[in-house]
């Protein structure tokens, strides 16, 4: 996961962090949500943004989603729970770009423009998993600090993220990818391969993230519904272990192959006019 630190060397990536965060926070305000519990819980179109900025801007999108969620809290409810929101949204945008290449063989087109059935299927799977991981992190945290029981928040947060990610995400990616590529702002075009983690064990990492995400959510629900103490050792410890598994999996996933693939593609595109000439 070294690219989450090395990306700060690039001024374009720093600016993309700021702009992603601002877009995420700003879209929360003028575009009203669809009420689930009126006045309390809404499904918000802005929830599609982390998936999109993660796949387009990579680690800049991950930091942008985290900071954007925090800034959104600045304009409403800044509490201790905002820490969970920061970390949860970081992973909501991180996991899509980290896991993307785990589903493609070397040589396959790994552009994140969801313009094929396989890419769309991969996107849906990753969007759902990332939503579950984000919800598990947030619910685990607010349960640990004794704010809200795990089972009361998990399903709502998953639905909130996944619904918007599945419905709006692909359309936004199809519309935005060509433009972002033309601007030269894809993270795979800005960063160098040596700045991104290698992915020797990406299949293992992929499996660990799935086990950690789904397992953590399921364990938390079971413990919560069978009467184990909310905020007690049960959920805090058990779900915490699954979250550690998710983190280990994320470290193993890599991402360098996407940057190398983008370099090869740029090289091929540059040599085409030469051959034509």
């Amino acid at each position, binding site marked *: 996961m070294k690219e989450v630190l090395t990306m*700060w060397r690039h*001024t*374009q990536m*720093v*600016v*993309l*962090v*700021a*702009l992603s*965060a*601002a*877009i995420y*926070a*700003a*879209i929360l*305000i*003028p*575009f009203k949500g*669809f009420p689930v*519990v009126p*006045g*309390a819980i809404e*499904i918000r*179109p802005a929830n*599609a*943004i982390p998936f*999109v900025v993660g796949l387009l801007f990579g680690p800049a999108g991950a*930091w*942008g989603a985290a*900071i*954007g969620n925090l*800034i959104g*809290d*600045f*304009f*409403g*409810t*800044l*509490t*201790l*729970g*905002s820490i969970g929101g920061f970390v949860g949204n970081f992973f909501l945008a991180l996991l899509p770009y980290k896991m993307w290449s785990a589903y493609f063989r070397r040589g396959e087109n790994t552009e994140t423009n969801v313009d094929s059935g396989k890419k769309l299927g991969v996107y849906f799977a990753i969007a759902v998993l990332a939503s579950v991981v984000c919800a598990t992190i947030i619910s685990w945290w607010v349960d640990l600090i*004794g*704010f*809200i*029981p795990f*089972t*009361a928040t998990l399903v709502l947060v998953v639905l909130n993220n996944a*619904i918007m990610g599945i*419905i*709006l995400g692909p*359309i*936004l990616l199809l519309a*935005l990818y060509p433009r972002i590529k033309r*601007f*030269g*702002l894809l993270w795979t075009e800005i960063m160098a391969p040596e700045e991104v983690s290698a992915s020797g064990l990406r299949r293992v990492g992929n499996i660990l993230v799935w086990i950690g995400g789904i397992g953590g959510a399921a364990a938390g629900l079971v413990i919560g519904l069978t009467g184990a*103490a*909310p905020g*007690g050792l049960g959920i805090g410890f058990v779900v915490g272990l699954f979250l550690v598994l998710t983190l280990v999996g994320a470290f193993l996933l890599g991402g360098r192959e996407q940057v190398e693939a983008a370099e090869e593609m740029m090289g091929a595109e540059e040599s085409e006019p030469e051959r034509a000439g």
Partner: protein
Amino acid sequence: MDPSLYLDRNTWVHRLDPRTKMFLLIGMFVLPFVFLDPLYVLAVLVLVLFFGYLAKALTNLRRIWFILVTIAILTVILWSIFGSGQTPLFLFVELEALLYGISIALRIDITVIAGMIFLSTTRNEEVAIGLVRLGIPYRFAFAVSTALRLVPTIVATGFAISEAQRSRGLDLESGNIIQRIRKHVPLLVPVFVSTIRSTNVFSMALESKGFGAGSKRTFFLKTAMGWRDVLVLVAFAALLAGAITLSLAGYGELEGFSR
């Protein structure tokens, strides 16, 4: 429409160093957790409101009162269901669980109000400077402050695009929920593209001014901790220590509750 909570007043709280206000904010996140008895937590709430009165920041409560009330009601209901006590009250609700729910509701509202006071008395530039002075890398603090600064601009752009699309026949109210969600695409894409389009020019402008050229940089905004900051921090530390001592002596507990 300015979504920012900052209130431009000239109080001693506004003049405190941003680091002092950040430490106070963290302290106000910790203090409500010392006690479980709702009466003690209520006393902490009164203290926070008094601090907000001194900072002349309580007018912002008008903007968030609905959130505070909603959070409080939902929290009391949730913990009355998920908690258990010894004294039956009505149906499946026990008195201790209800009191615990009230205590948690007060805790959450205290942290929301403390956050509101912090944002009402601290400018975006001070947040960035405070983060840097606390050792956060400058590039990260720059990203945070830039994002904060751009939010009102993007909100205004969002409203303008929304009005423009509505004048061209975009109807966000009709259709089933999936159709209504999809209709947000003509709003989100222009906002996204118009903002991201400036990235390369923004980056060049930053680098032409030496962004990241050196490891250290100076700032136009000068901040320094004065005697007021030290006094406030010492007073708060004493308050927190006193609260913890009371708690260890057995005060502020909630008997008979189990989670």
